[in-house]
């Protein structure tokens, strides 16, 4: 197995163009499991750990944050938890503390597992993925268009994930997931919500309950039309939001849970997270502990 160690982003793109079958590796927390158990034997590994710019994040002129694909979850939590609370909550549930010191959103995006914890928060928060190839330069892909199928994304063979872009939260955000414990379990299903009070709009997305992570579009549109932003939450609105979130799911039965359970849990999490976020909004808070 060839092992490529580019020192710069330009070298990394050149290496990926020369050898498109090379599998990129950063934290290794997903890829190494497959290598250790010989599930997957890539022709080559493209180690991105020396590419320093991947581990940096910047506040851009347009107000958005550009976060390098190699920033580990632990740093997202510590350095950006105040500006990206929904994503930070999801990050606090990834793997274990040791995994969070290595694992990255870039890795989650590359693997594109429907159960990846960061995806619903990226979708609800309107993240845009920056990918690049030596031949064609940069492509900016809205998270909503990034996931194609189970463990499939829109990356072309010569492309690498450079960063993701997100606006700092403009309102309360929550992430919720169902699992047997917090550490080292794959989500049974998950849900993320982001309130955008300025635009009178709500972002909502489901994880581990369909072939890809996906937005709950009908639920979002319902809230944009029906939510009275100056009043307490109406029980009927809350209930309908839960139903529409459930309808966005197309889950399967597997060892972690049944499709029926997942549908039910998505509805519960949708109602819960909207209630938490609404209470925070009414109280002028942006975040409290999620459950």
């Amino acid at each position: 197995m060839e092992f490529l160690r580019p020192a710069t982003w330009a070298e990394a793109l050149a290496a990926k163009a020369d050898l498109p079958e090379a599998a990129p590796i950063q934290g290794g927390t997903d890829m190494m499991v497959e290598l250790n158990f010989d599930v997957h034997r890539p022709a080559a590994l493209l180690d991105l750990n020396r590419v320093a710019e991947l581990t940096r994040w910047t506040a851009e002129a347009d107000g958005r944050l550009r976060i390098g694909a190699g920033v580990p979850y632990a740093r997202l939590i510590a350095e950006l938890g105040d500006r990206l609370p929904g994503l930070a909550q999801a990050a606090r549930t990834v793997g274990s503390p040791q995994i969070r010191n290595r694992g990255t959103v870039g890795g989650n995006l590359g693997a594109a597992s429907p159960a990846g914890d960061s995806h619903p928060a990226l979708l609800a928060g309107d993240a845009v993925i920056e990918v690049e190839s030596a031949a064609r330069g940069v492509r900016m892909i809205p998270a909503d268009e990034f996931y194609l199928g189970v463990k499939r994304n829109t990356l072309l063979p010569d492309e690498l994930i450079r960063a993701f872009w997100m606006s700092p939260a403009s309102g309360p955000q929550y992430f919720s997931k169902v699992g047997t414990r917090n550490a080292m379990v794959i989500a049974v299903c998950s849900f993320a919500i982001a309130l955008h009070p300025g635009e009178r709009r709500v972002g909502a997305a489901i994880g581990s309950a369909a072939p890809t992570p996906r937005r709950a579009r009908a639920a979002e549109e319902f809230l944009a039309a029906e939510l009275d932003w100056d009043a307490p939450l109406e029980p009927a609105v809350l209930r309908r939001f839960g139903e529409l979130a459930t309808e966005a799911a197309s889950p399967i039965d597997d060892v972690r849970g049944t499709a029926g359970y997942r549908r039910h849990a998505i509805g519960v999490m949708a109602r819960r997270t909207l209630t938490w976020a609404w209470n925070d909004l009414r109280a002028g808070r942006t975040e409290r502990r999620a459950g």
Partner: protein
Amino acid sequence: MNARITLRVDGRDRPVALDTRTTLLDALRDRLSVTSPKKGCDHGQCGACTVLLDGRRVVSCLILAVACDGSEVVTAQGLVEEGEPHPVQRAFLEEDGFQCGFCTPGQICSAVGMLQEVKAGHPSQVTDDLTGPVTLDDEEIRERLSGNLCRCGAYVNIVAALREETAPSEETSPRAETSPSEEAES
């Protein structure tokens, strides 16, 4: 395919030539005879192979050794200074924080890394106040050590050891700083 790298392990430079597929754990145990980190599951679930890599706790089974060229690796063995156990090691001894001992070096490294994270103000999944210093109660200790399994079930005494170790915590530190203007936006 082979590579020559140098790891700084427990304070000593250790040059080694190895197959690029070698994990940090295998490099330490099989090539450098540093057997303090243990191979429990080899897929990041059990935490027995936890070491401190450039100061942060990581599972050494999920890292390729070549990716660590030039890095500082500290194992539980390396936490001993001049024959004196590290305070966390002493606390495990005093509180009987183990039975068979297989998971212990990983638990110790994880605990040392965890205490540094707490000192830096990093919140966990069970932290209520995300802006203030972290109060390391039993719930926090359990959550923060949840990446280390103990099949003997010595958890009660591991928690006690860390409760003991952290009891007089006069040190507090603020979380990552936020400017007032950024706060106003969010």
